[in-house]
């Protein structure tokens, strides 16, 4: 899928940005253009961009930064993806004062909603005209005017010292209020409220859905997450050096951690103009595909489990086990962790290891195909997921969906092709796209991607050149912006960095793909039957989260009953 010459396109885009009123336009790295715009002009500028590029402009994320120590201002940097043109546009605006204000882009690009609220919570930047200016990340009882990501907030400062302070005034737990945000002003007339979540001992990704049901139908769904915000950005910015952060970055996710380590390293390498040796790029890509393989196969297991088909669940996890063992042989542990440093990789894949990988691919591909082909030919399975959890192409674009989730709604976006990184510059990736927009499509997209990963790993292993594993480099130049993007198993993973002094980061903003995909779940749930909720929630590939226990509140009597949503779903489904 090669397209028009890169430099030509770039030249045209730079011209356009200048014409539309950018104060300055710089190409900061290959495929990334940074424009600065005054805040009064921001809306008009973005409106003009939308007019110019239309559908192909996608709001990816935004990063707020406290630049007061260096420039005396705050900045907000929006990341807009022009996937077709293989470009990321960074649009930076400055804001001054202690309660800085910038215009919100959410009215123009609804996908900006969460990212703007995050900057509001953590940095105290107000987004004027935001349709939903309420807390997203910080817990409800967090005091007003305390902004943890500002530079004058010490990373080890404790807000509450004693257990009594934590417990709060009325002895209620301070850090979880069952109220969703925005508060449910009115429970809808004649509806029952079914909260799903937020905690379960087996989960590592608590999330909370509030489902309003009328009989079997879900009439409204609300989502609240961020119960386990871990303050990683703050930790990295204040305490760690650039080569310590990869090990923190990969702990963002327990399944696809390596993709974060890669995106992070790519961002720093771009900022510091470090040329990574080709062999290292190949090794990164091979490991990324191995990660996709085990992540997707794991998901198949979870999806089968959700459908009440536990034989499939076990079979998938058995097949996945082989991938994990190879990962252990390659990296020294079952998770593909600990492989990256800025500038390259730490371990080689020699002949012996390569043949291990090839043998694993052989058996995994065969078994996966055989098993899934027979499952997908069963009418009971197909009918169960067909036309369930529909996310139209329109909605997917509007809400900024990424990854297999977007591809199942007919959007052919894939960072490996649109913004090639690592060794994807040297091999062609076939992008799996389906347009039935339902859970079935999501299954089929991931099926194709498993097969494609197997093919890619073989090709990468065959073409891998000899050479160094690590680039040599000196001290980091300060205050440079870098962007790293990878196609994680769940979609586009973006890391933005601003380098600091003393081999540290001034700012680090990772954005995982589920961040945008989760925002699409309420849309998919509305109008569905309750029994379909578990598989719909699971179809974007979060974790088991919260699908186990729900509390049913009978509105008339106020009686609470606990029940198992999953089991419920299965007996009805």
């Amino acid at each position, binding site marked *: 899928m090669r397209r028009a010459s890169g430099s030509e396109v770039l030249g045209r885009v730079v011209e356009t940005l200048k014409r539309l009123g950018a104060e300055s336009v710089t190409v900061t790295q290959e495929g990334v253009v940074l424009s600065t715009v005054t805040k009064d002009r921001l809306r008009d500028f973005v409106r003009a961009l939308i007019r110019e590029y239309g559908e192909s402009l996608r709001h990816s994320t935004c990063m707020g930064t406290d630049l007061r120590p260096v420039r005396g201002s705050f900045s907000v940097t929006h990341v807009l993806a022009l996937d077709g043109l293989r470009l990321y546009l960074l649009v930076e605006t400055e804001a001054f004062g202690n309660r800085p204000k910038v215009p919100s882009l959410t009215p123009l690009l609804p996908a900006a909603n969460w990212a703007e609220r995050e900057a509001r919570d953590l940095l105290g930047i107000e987004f004027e005209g935001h349709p939903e200016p309420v807390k997203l990340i910080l817990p409800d009882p967090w005091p007003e005017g305390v902004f943890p990501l500002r530079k004058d907030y010490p990373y080890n400062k404790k807000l509450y010292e004693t257990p009594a302070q934590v417990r709060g005034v009325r002895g209620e737990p301070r850090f979880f209020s069952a109220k969703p945000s925005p508060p449910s002003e009115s429970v809808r007339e004649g509806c029952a409220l079914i909260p799903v979540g937020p905690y379960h001992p087996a989960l590592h990704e608590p999330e909370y859905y509030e489902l309003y049901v009328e009989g079997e139908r879900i009439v409204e769904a609300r989502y609240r997450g961020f119960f386990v915000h871990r303050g990683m950005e703050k930790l990295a910015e204040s305490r760690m050096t650039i080569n310590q952060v990869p090990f923190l970055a990969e702990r963002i996710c327990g399944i696809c951690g390596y993709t974060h380590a890669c995106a992070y390293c790519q961002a720093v390498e771009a900022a510091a103009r470090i040329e990574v040796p080709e062999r290292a790029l190949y090794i990164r890509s091979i490991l990324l595909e191995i990660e996709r393989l085990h992540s997707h196969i794991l998901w198949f297991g979870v999806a089968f489990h959700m459908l009440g088909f536990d034989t499939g669940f076990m079979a998938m996890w*058995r097949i996945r086990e082989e991938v994990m063992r190879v990962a252990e042989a390659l990296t020294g542990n079952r998770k593909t962790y*600990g492989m990256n440093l800025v500038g390259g990789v*730490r371990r080689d894949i020699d002949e012996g290891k390569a043949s291990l990988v090839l043998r694993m691919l052989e058996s995994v591909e065969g078994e996966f195909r055989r098993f899934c082909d027979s499952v997908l030919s069963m009418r009971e399975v197909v009918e169960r997921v067909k036309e369930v959890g529909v996310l139209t192409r329109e909605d997917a674009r509007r809400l900024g969906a990424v990854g297999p989730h977007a591809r199942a709604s007919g959007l052919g976006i894939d960072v490996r092709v649109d913004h090639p990184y690592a060794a994807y510059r040297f091999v062609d990736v076939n992008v799996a796209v389906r347009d039935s927009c339902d859970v079935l499509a999501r299954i089929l997209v991931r099926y194709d991607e498993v097969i494609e990963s197997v093919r890619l790993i073989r090709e990468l292993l065959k073409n891998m050149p000899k050479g160094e594993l690590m680039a040599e480099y000196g001290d980091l130049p300060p205050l440079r912006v870098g962007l790293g993007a990878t196609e994680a198993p769940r979609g586009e993973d973006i890391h933005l960095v601003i380098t600091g002094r003393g081999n540290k980061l001034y700012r680090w903003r990772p954005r995982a793909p589920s961040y945008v995909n989760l925002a699409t779940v309420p849309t998919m749930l509305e109008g569905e039957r309750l029994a379909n909720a578990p598989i719909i929630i699971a179809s974007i590939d979060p974790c088991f989260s919260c699908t186990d226990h729900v509390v049913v509140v009978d509105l008339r009597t106020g009686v609470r009953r606990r029940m198992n949503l999953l089991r419920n779903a299965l007996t009805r489904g």
Partner: protein
Amino acid sequence: MVEGLGKRVVTEAYPWAPLEVPEGFRGKPVIDPEKCVGCGSCVNACPPNALTLSDDGRHRVVKLFLGRCIFCGRCEEVCPFNAIELTKEFELATSSTEDLVQEVRLVMAKCTVCGRPYATLREVRKVAESLPENLRGLAYVCPDCRGRISSYFVGFARR
């Protein structure tokens, strides 16, 4: 589909049978107390602060706390003396935190000019060994005094 089922078992007999881990497995790091010179390179590299350094004037203590260790192997990678290595050991569960700590205590060297402890004796000896004989004495002088001495000589030479 039935054909694939029950044929292959991936469940391990562990813990009733030993579990083999591959070459290059990243397990428990162990410091060789005979080789470590207390230079602190590993401490600087360790991402989660599992390795720490403390001086009490007479001794320097390199402390490894496995409770924080993420088994990344950065310490092994940066140690100039191959004094810390990751092993294949992974059975670390214990009911006592002490089992998770390894400490290496090293005697400090005092500066022969100002008397201040400035590095471990072992590290100083290593440095001394690497210097030509007529300069060895300089290894036993702390960096501050060394700076003063050399600027004195430089100043002398200019005059």
